[in-house]
């Protein structure tokens, strides 16, 4: 496999694509949002259970998409479980900087941890949206509390 391609499709990404973590619905979610990429038809729904201390007790996703988008959602949910809302927002910003390769915005690699495998996406402008769809959906779930779900 060519170097660039290998960097995009790292083993971790291929693994998460094959066996996505937290790929389920949370029936009593306190927050959820649907994300959709009309360009490619990818869709993802992110479910979260946030307690009164603003800690993400549980987070999951469902939907369909390419390996990059599926692995991104899978890794995101693994990373965010147990984090606070503020930490989730910070990680969103870090991840966004990583995949969009903004000049001057040095992504916080330490904070990113496993998410660093998505660094290769920078070389593929057409695929940046695949990697960031789940994250944007998560952010929208954080901020638009779903009224239909009865919370405490």
């Amino acid at each position, binding site marked *: 496999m060519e170097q660039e*391609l290998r960097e995009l*499709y790292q083993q971790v990404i291929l693994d998460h694509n094959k066996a996505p973590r937290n790929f389920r619905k949370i029936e009593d979610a306190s927050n959820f949002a649907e994300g959709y990429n009309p360009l*490619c*038809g990818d869709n993802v729904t992110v479910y979260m259970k946030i307690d009164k201390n603003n800690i993400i007790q549980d987070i999951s996703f469902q939907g369909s*998409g390419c390996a990059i988008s599926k692995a991104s959602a899978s890794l995101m949910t693994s990373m965010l479980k147990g984090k606070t809302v503020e930490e989730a927002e910070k990680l969103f910003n870090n991840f966004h900087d990583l995949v969009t390769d903004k000049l001057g915005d040095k992504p916080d690699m330490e904070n990113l941890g496993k998410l660093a495998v998505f660094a290769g996406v920078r070389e593929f402008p057409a695929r940046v949206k695949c990697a960031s769809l789940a994250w944007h959906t998560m952010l929208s779930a954080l901020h638009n509390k779903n009224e239909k779900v009865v919370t405490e």
Partner: protein
Amino acid sequence: MSIKSDAALPSVNTVYDVNRIREDFPILKQVVHGKPLVYLDNAATTQKPLQVLKELEKYYYTMNANIHRGVHALSQEATEAYESARIKIKKFINALGKNEIIFTRGTTESINLVAQSYGRKNFNEGDEIIISHMEHHSNIVPWQLICEEKKAKLRVIPIDDSGELIFEEFEKMINERTKFVSVVYASNSLGTVNPVKKIIEVAHSFNVPVLLDAAQAVNHLKIDVQELDCDFLAFSGHKLYGPTGIGILYGKVNHLDSMPPYQGGGDMISKVTFEKTLYNELPYKFEAGTPNIAGAIGLGAAIDYVGKTGLDKIARYENELLEYATEKISELKGLRIIGTSKNKISVLSFVLENVHPHDVGTFLDFEGVAIRTGHHCTQPIMDRYGIPATSRASFGMYNTFEEVDVLIRGLKKILEVFG
């Protein structure tokens, strides 16, 4: 090409000199990610031969002027070139007269023109417009817009699992409330060639006019609008080896005559006063503003080019490519072809069991292979098959059997990585 084919050389190669044709398309010599370009995205747009590029250059180098206006030499020359392109197109689809050939920006604008002009004049509350489940968004949305405005109803002919129209359903659907039928001649995402002549016959027995979206048909099938007896026909230049931004609306003269203008502006009038404006004669009534003059001339050159090789020969060759590709691709594990009608243009849509089309597209790109991945502006088809997207290889007059082999080898590599 330096790549050796796994295929036994098909006999058609002896009469169809694809290498000679490839010489006319300079872009095919491009190298992508270090590999020779294998361009299999012809249903999205085709590449342009030197003969077209030279005409465009010649126009801007030697005769650029506005048409139908000046008395000076350049304007007359440009007008003549533009109008002679119209005559080429008239002959190409065997229209009765050149006043039935309207230059537009493309298929999309052609369909919008009919929906807005014919539809606004003739549709009323409770009327029904029939399209099919395999339409491109450009043959769905214009009708939805006018249906909403007129409180008319859009009805959809269903398709079966092979991707063919269920004709009996169409026969059941059409009735005295039906005011228009607009169907695709050949599907861009399934490849299916529809029985349009039969559709037109049935529609005409109810006195209902028919528009054919021929965007994908025009570079594969010989079109004779008089023989088809279609009322309108729309296509784009850029899928016929011509430039982008130029398209055609053919309409029977009695329809076009009775239709109000689509856009107002210069060239579409014969006399303007603040009290009343008299519209120009056909086809100029529908060509407001300075048109894409170079595009029209380029499209004329593309038609000459295709005519030189012969559309029948091209179609036969592309069918052999499709057959070969279909056979080879069917051997891959977990691959499902979407669109298995017996009567297809050279479009091959497929899904892989565990690999999303976008990943297929990125991997193939690194093999130099350009295919389209996504919903192909036909989301209802994707919903019909319960899939988000497909990968689509589509073949043009310059593709080779060796290129099909490169595609298959690329797919095999993908299956190994994702296996």
